[in-house]
């Protein structure tokens, strides 16, 4: 999207919003540079905790929070952190927020914390977060880093919900724990198991690539 220079006075609020570079900074994470479907990053947590829609949503929110806070801090410290120790510094910052998230989830719901298991702690090594820190936050202003983190986080939540709803629907006959099918529904056990995660990810990647190709043509 390019910045429109003509007819600026005639544009309404939504047009201005749509053509502003800040909107683009946010929107790019949703589909064009979706962290899961396009960048294929953070596969460990994507495959492991997308077995139900709720787990996927919780994981997505936790990751978005860590991404947002670490992007803010790293972007504001970008001129202070020496280049030679930047990775260690980023990890320290990320780990701080992950620990906070871990304790927060434990405080909110023990059940959810058990379902997500070690994968909350493993957000530390989610390459998507380190990737945004290294590729974006360390080179851009705080405001743009916030937009970038929110966009990437939303894209991650969308991806996890895409996987989680279908896996829960087929594997358990419900969405967000609410039964959709009658009692006699036969669960596809494989969809809750790890292979189901791989199958669904492959199918969604196929759908995304097909949509992209159609757009390109």
């Amino acid at each position, binding site marked *: 999207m390019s910045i429109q220079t003509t007819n600026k006075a005639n544009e309404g609020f939504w047009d201005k919003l749509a053509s502003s570079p800040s909107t683009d900074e946010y929107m790019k994470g949703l589909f064009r540079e979706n962290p899961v479907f396009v960048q294929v990053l953070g596969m460990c947590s994507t495959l492991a905790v997308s077995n139900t829609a709720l787990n996927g949503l919780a994981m997505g929110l936790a990751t978005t929070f860590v991404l947002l806070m670490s992007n803010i801090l790293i972007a504001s410290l970008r001129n202070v952190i020496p280049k030679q120790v930047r990775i260690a510094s980023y990890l320290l910052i990320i780990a701080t927020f992950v620990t906070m998230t871990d304790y927060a989830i434990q405080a909110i719901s023990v059940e959810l914390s058990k379902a997500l298991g070690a994968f909350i702690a493993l957000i530390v090594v989610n390459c998507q977060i380190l990737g945004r820190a290294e590729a974006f936050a360390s080179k851009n202003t705080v405001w743009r880093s916030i937009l970038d983190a929110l966009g990437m986080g939303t894209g991650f939540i969308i991806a996890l919900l895409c996987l989680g709803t279908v896996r829960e629907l087929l594997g358990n006959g419900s969405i967000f724990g609410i039964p959709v099918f*009658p009692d*006699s529904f*036969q669960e596809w*056990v*494989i*969809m809750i*198991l790890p292979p189901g995660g791989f199958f669904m990810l492959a199918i969604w990647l196929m759908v995304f690539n097909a949509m992209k190709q159609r757009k390109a043509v």
Partner: protein
Amino acid sequence: MQGKSQIQNVFKKTLNISTSPHLVRGIGTNDIMRNVVWALLPTALYAVYAFGLSALLLLVTSTVACVLTEHFLAKKSKQPSTISDWSAVITGLLLGLTLPPNFPLWMAFLGGIVSIALGKFVFGGLGYNVFNPALVGRAFLQAAFPVAITTWFPVFSPDRFSSVSVATSTLPLMEPATDGFTGATPLSAFKFDHISTDTYDLAMGFITGSTGETCAVLIILGGIYLAVRKMLNWHIPVSILATVYVLTALLHFSNPEKYPTPEFMLFSGGLMLGAVFMATDMVGSPITTAGVWIYGALIGALVVVIRLWGGLPEGVMYAILLGNAVSPHLDNLIRPRVYGTGNRGEKVRG
């Protein structure tokens, strides 16, 4: 670019250049595949005789699912449809033969789709599949519906030609109702209750089990037909069966109380069907004779290990899938010496 292709076209018309072999037998893929279908027919007919209408519907459903999927995916990828080479028919038949006779039809249909789409087309179609497509479909069904795939149907039940099993006609996506009968196969009877079955009954197929695995004699006859016509590498079934026999014999003589007789192991479960018709898949098995023997021995050993010490009563499917996974590496390790080179492939000076 265009000029180059024009030159190539002229070349093709005037000069016909091809690599060896220059003598061909005149037998194509579809001839071999058709003969495999002939060899499978007695087994399929016996299955329909033993289990009735349910088995017939099951075999038809899985075959139709495979052929339709093959046709649809070929069209979708803008290739000529490959259903006329009979390979999808074989995949469908084999899938149906490895499922219980009262398996719900919608699950069998799903299995057929998975077999062709995931077992074959993902890798690029016939000739490129790493695993036996029918077994990929079955492995998927085993993981997705573990209860339905281990619910068995009585053999020679009196009303088998007049009515269809309740489970067979389950509506799509619904859980199959139990027939009231969940008999044990000889293998599960041995595994969980330690009851052995008479070898004669096992070989002739007077037992329950998956649709097409019960009558060992007909499977062996089909295999011999294919081996005589040189459409099946007889080294593969022989090496698998020999390995199973020798290993079980050793175990049986060391502790007859705990381990079954080698005859029981050979004729029970899906071993015959797997060894003769699935492990011999030309794409999934090694090329060299030495490689084939290692491949067969590996599958045989895995079958014994899974059956005797594993959690499941039957392990032929997983054994063959693992064998398929190993076979490209066997081809890499064992290479025939090329004429004019040394043992390690280096050029000989001269």
